[in-house]
């Protein structure tokens, strides 16, 4: 494993059994699967913000949860700091949890409504036996202050429903950070927060990265935010990565037709902009019936016969820039 890699994911797959009608269940033997994540490999470097971008249903959230082992993979491996964490169970997994954290999209549902803020944020310390009593309280106050909730004593005694979405998201972060993790997955952390307040959370994340030497996996469907925060971006479609590259490469030189279509569809706050949307046919296929060959080919404006037969692998086109397209050249 590369010295500076903190996470490496190899051929990760997650298939969920698909619901079938009653008769179908009786009469057929084949199982249908929702192939949420279908052979994904990449690595994340220490200290970077790596973004997994894509539309809903592409598998980005599932990938995030697989990496922090919230759900077990169907197959494939996850390495954290050179250790294979794929098959960890129980106690070993719990200890690893201190170093890998996740925050979720919905600030209104991420906090236990029956626990006071102080209790929620301090709970990780309790679980791992890392601090008690006054020391625990001190750490909680510190971390609340650090995420911008001042004065922290006031927030300790409140319940989540007394706070705004932005505040709740900060508390979720505080709870995740109190154990001083090395890696954090942020799953759409600002999409349910008012637009004018999003940057406060994003900037907080960036500040904390420097201060606490964190690495982020940032998951979003909003490529505009992705451009603002990321170092590298991977674009996902229907369970696979179609393009990975540095921020500059992805945004100035998008190679995969899907990436190009995505970028051209993003609204730009400029009335004078001449819109040139790259038109895509049809809609996203279902993850149960994945089209043969390149899964993007039914919608691709450049599709050829080859595309319908072979599933492309990620090829390096320029340094650090990988594209999964039959027509890409190294």
């Amino acid at each position, binding site marked *: 494993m590369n010295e500076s890699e903190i996470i490496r994911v190899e051929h990760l797959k997650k298939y969920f059994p698909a619901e079938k009608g009653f008769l179908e269940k009786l009469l057929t033997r084949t199982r249908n699967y929702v192939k949420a994540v279908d052979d994904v490999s990449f690595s994340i470097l220490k200290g970077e913000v790596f973004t997994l971008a894509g539309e809903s249903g592409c598998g980005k959230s599932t990938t995030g949860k697989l990496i922090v082992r919230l759900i077990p993979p169907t197959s494939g491996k996850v390495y954290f700091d050179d250790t294979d964490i794929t098959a960890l169970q129980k106690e070993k997994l719990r200890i690893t949890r201190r170093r890998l954290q996740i925050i979720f999209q919905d600030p209104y549902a991420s906090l236990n409504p029956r626990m006071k803020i102080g209790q929620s944020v301090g709970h990780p310390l309790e679980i791992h036996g890392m601090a008690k009593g006054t020391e625990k309280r001190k750490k909680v106050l510190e971390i609340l202050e650090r995420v911008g909730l001042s004065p922290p004593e006031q927030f300790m005694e409140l319940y989540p429903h007394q706070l705004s979405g932005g505040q709740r998201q900060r508390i979720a972060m505080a709870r995740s950070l109190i154990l001083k993790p090395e890696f954090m997955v942020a799953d759409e952390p600002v999409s349910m927060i*008012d637009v*004018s307040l*999003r940057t*406060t959370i994003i*900037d907080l994340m960036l500040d904390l990265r420097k201060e606490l030497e964190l690495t982020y996996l940032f998951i979003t469907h909003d490529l505009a935010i992705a451009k603002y925060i990321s170092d590298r971006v991977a674009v996902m479609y229907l369970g696979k990565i179609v393009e990975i590259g540095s921020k500059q490469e992805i945004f100035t030189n998008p190679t995969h037709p899907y990436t190009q279509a995505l970028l051209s*569809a*993003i609204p730009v706050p400029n009335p*004078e902009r001449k819109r040139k949307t790259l038109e895509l046919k049809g809609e*996203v296929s279902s993850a149960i019936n994945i089209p043969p060959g390149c899964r993007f080919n039914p919608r691709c404006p450049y599709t050829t016969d080859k595309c319908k037969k072979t599933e492309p692998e990620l090829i390096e086109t320029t340094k650090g820039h990988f594209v999964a397209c039959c027509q890409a050249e190294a």
Partner: protein
Amino acid sequence: MNREPAHLLTVKDLAVEYWTRRGIVRAVEDISFSLDKGETLGVVGESGSGKSTLGLSLIHLVPYPGRIIRGTILLEGQNILKFGNKETRDLRGRRISYVFQDPMTSLNPVERIKNHFIELIRTHEPKVTASEAITRTRKLFKDVGIQPERIDDYPHQLSGGMRQRVMIALALALNPSIVIADEPTTALDVIVQAKILDLLKTLQDTYGMALMLITHDLSIVLERSDKIMVMYAGRIVEQALSMTLYAQAQHPYSQGLLKSIPNIELAEQKLTAIGGAPPDLRNPPTGCPFWPRCPYIMEICKIKDPPLFQTSKDHFAKCYLYGGEKSS
């Protein structure tokens, strides 16, 4: 204000309150604007801005416990707030139609799509037969880009994007003069979103209706509307043509908003958020509702809510920076 050509829609001094058990909430206050044929008006605001309430009041459909307590809404010269039941039913769907936010739940899951249309058309035009209605529906489907065969489907058989197209087709079925679209693309992915917004523009060119786009996404309205109203805490804080707003936003909230949204076409960007949070409308601050978050406050701001000052021909800003009483 004397010899202006009559607008299609003129709203004056509209105010809506919600009488809840916890107190009276002023959802919308002091709203005055106009809309012309073929124009696209963007209404942008965050949570609590009152934009949805505003949209609903234009078809006189503010949900209980809300009530319109003041103002006039003139559609082609007639005040719709004074309409009787029959005229109000005629208004909704036929003269002004509404595209609701969530296409997933806005259609009746046990009715085929075509029945939605048949019912709508025949309610307003009872002389139309079912087969005539179906013919019209097929044409509408072609216009919104769905294969006509799908009129026989049930809502769950259609994807989110297609359901939204169905909603738009329903909104156009009776050829209204105004279509109000409330967050028409929030529940959709970005590629579908672009298609739907493109579709609305194309339809506008074909059908000639005025479009009111209500959304929290400033990028969308900047790109796609002719003029924009920025709402905050139930009031219009700025009204301008899109170009003007982009180039010279005047109200500190609009300025803050522009600085907080990422622009994918800019190489490097420094985004700044607006500090603080939107006010609790049950207990709004005295004076201008934005003052707790404003970088330019003056004493007067805390005392009296500023009026809407006209700063140039089509530009209005509700801020003491642009006129009125100065601080003592």
